[in-house]
């Protein structure tokens, strides 16, 4: 048994594992979808090899810094592996005044062991402002969110300033734009209110259009008309200050331009344009092990530095002036 473990601990397997990661990294460079799954193979080989080496290689018992480095390295691999199993990664767009809905989140990645408790997160999207410098250079993004059930406590999410709700981290993205608030008054007396989001703004200022089907089943093409963006001066993207109109085209190609407060009679109901607000695109991620990965990586780095320092100091020949100029023998 011990012979087998010693064989698994071979440094040649370590080299093969490292070459394996290089091959996967190169393949991922060509095709970004390749990465995570195939990376598991060389990483698993390295983890087993490393564990066997820690158990059997005498060098680790003689050099504690080297041992700490390799144990931490193993911890990093294992923590990242567990992190991938429990992680969550998603996107959501929220309009000012809209309550967060966990089931509207577009899931990008969800680990096999992730326990979905995002539906416990409860907040309402507050005011959104984005500063621009001349030349439409995006500067600070500020998005206020109001926690429900905490006396209306407001938190600000912005560049490099995420907010965490129940271990789910919310980050603003460059993706944000206009949403028109519409009211539908059905013939049977049912009134519904909702929003239609337009493409990212001002990135797609030239195509502020979308399609929407009314609760009455009528398919509409919507186009948002706004004042041009001032490109040569400081500017703040915020709701409440832009004049707008909504151009509505139906299947018969009848076109109507509506200002805020105006209505149009349609089949089975009346559509009213109420307001124009901003929506913000959020990235949501969940990986509670990351602080531990960071701690293990930093400890590994410190241990490696100590190991090298001890090695070089031990190898400095007599009479030498340089503190680190000795032949390096790594074992």
């Amino acid at each position: 048994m011990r012979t087998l473990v010693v064989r698994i601990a071979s440094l040649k397997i370590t080299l093969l594992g490292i070459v394996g990661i290089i091959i996967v990294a190169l393949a991922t460079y060509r095709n970004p979808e390749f990465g995570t799954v195939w990376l598991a193979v060389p990483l698993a080989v390295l983890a087993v090899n490393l564990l066997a080496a820690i158990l059997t290689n005498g060098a680790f018992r003689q050099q504690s810094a080297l041992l700490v480095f390799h144990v931490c390295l193993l911890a990093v691999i294992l923590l990242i592996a567990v992190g991938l199993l429990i992680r969550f990664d998603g996107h959501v767009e929220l309009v000012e005044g809209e309550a967060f809905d966990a089931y509207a989140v577009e899931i990008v990645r969800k680990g096999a062991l992730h326990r979905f408790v995002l539906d416990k997160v409860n907040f309402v999207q507050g005011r959104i402002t984005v500063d621009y410098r001349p030349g439409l250079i995006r500067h600070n993004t500020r998005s206020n969110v109001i926690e429900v059930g905490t006396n209306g406590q407001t938190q600000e999410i912005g560049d490099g300033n995420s907010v965490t709700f129940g271990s789910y981290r919310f980050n603003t993205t460059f993706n944000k734009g206009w949403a028109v608030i519409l009211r539908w008054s059905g013939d049977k007396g049912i009134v519904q209110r909702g929003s239609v989001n337009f493409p990212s703004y001002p990135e797609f200022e030239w195509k502020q259009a979308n399609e929407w089907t009314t609760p009455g089943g009528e398919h509409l093409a919507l186009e948002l008309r706004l004042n041009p963006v001032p490109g040569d001066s400081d500017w703040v993207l915020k709701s409440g200050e832009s004049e707008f109109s909504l151009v509505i085209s139906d299947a018969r190609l009848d076109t109507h331009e509506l200002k805020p407060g105006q209505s149009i009679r349609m089949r089975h109901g009346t559509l009213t344009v109420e307001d124009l607000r901003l929506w913000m695109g959020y990235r949501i991620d969940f990986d509670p092990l990351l602080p531990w990965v960071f701690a293990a990586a930093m400890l590994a780095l410190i241990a490696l530095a100590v190991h090298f320092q001890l090695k070089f100091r031990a190898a400095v020949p007599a009479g030498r002036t340089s503190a680190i100029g000795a032949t390096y023998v790594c074992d």
Partner: protein
Amino acid sequence: MFATEAVERNLLLIALVTVSFAIVLEYLGRKRRRPTSVATVSLLVATTVVLFCAVFGRWLREGQGPFLTLYDVLLSNLFTLNLIYLIIYVLFVRTRASAVIVLPFFALLGVWLLSLPSVAVPLPATFDNPWLWMHVLSGKLFLGLSLVPAALSAVLLLQIFAARPARESAHADAKQLDGEIWPLFALAFICHSFMLIAGSVWAHSAWGRYWAWDPLETWALITWLAMALLLHARVTYRQLPPAIAWASVVVIFGLAFLTFFGVPFVSMAPHKGVM
């Protein structure tokens, strides 16, 4: 007045001239077997000061650090490479043999820099984070520390290819130079490791993910793995021919160089994918 583009360009020209003088001095000194270290150190100090003024002036003018464009990255790295090399040159006498490679390398970088458009790109708000500083500074340390081992390895390889007579003293010199390579290489490996860690924290803080296989991340990881591979190979194969080890050090520096200056050249801005 001080921080105009014209002044910056003139400073770069002055730096190029001082490096050129240092190259001539080094070659003449070696040919005549006279030590030129005092003059070389003086010229390196002058070059470093001039480059510092160029970086500082640009910083004042643009109101942001030199992080984004290839011009910015090259300019700031030229300054830090000079500074780190100057320190190593003064502190570790035996590494001075690397000057015949390093100084012409600086001159080439200077010529390349002068040929690039110097238009600044505003730093996105998401980039502005303390971890950016740690990431960038450790990256510069890594590049500076890996330059000297690569240059010393190149010198040793050139000696092999030049088929110099196998004198006893030549072997001793080679062994001493080899002894300078590995501690610096190991130190560079530590800096590279910290660069990756700091970069991950920065990316996570700025964009909500710590790794995304963008071209810079991928090539930085490949460079790190290549360094780890070489360090392990030296343990696994204790009789690893020195020429292979030296060639590997040069190749790894080439990889690092491409990661720093090749990938941004293709994408025009580091981590452009997330901007």
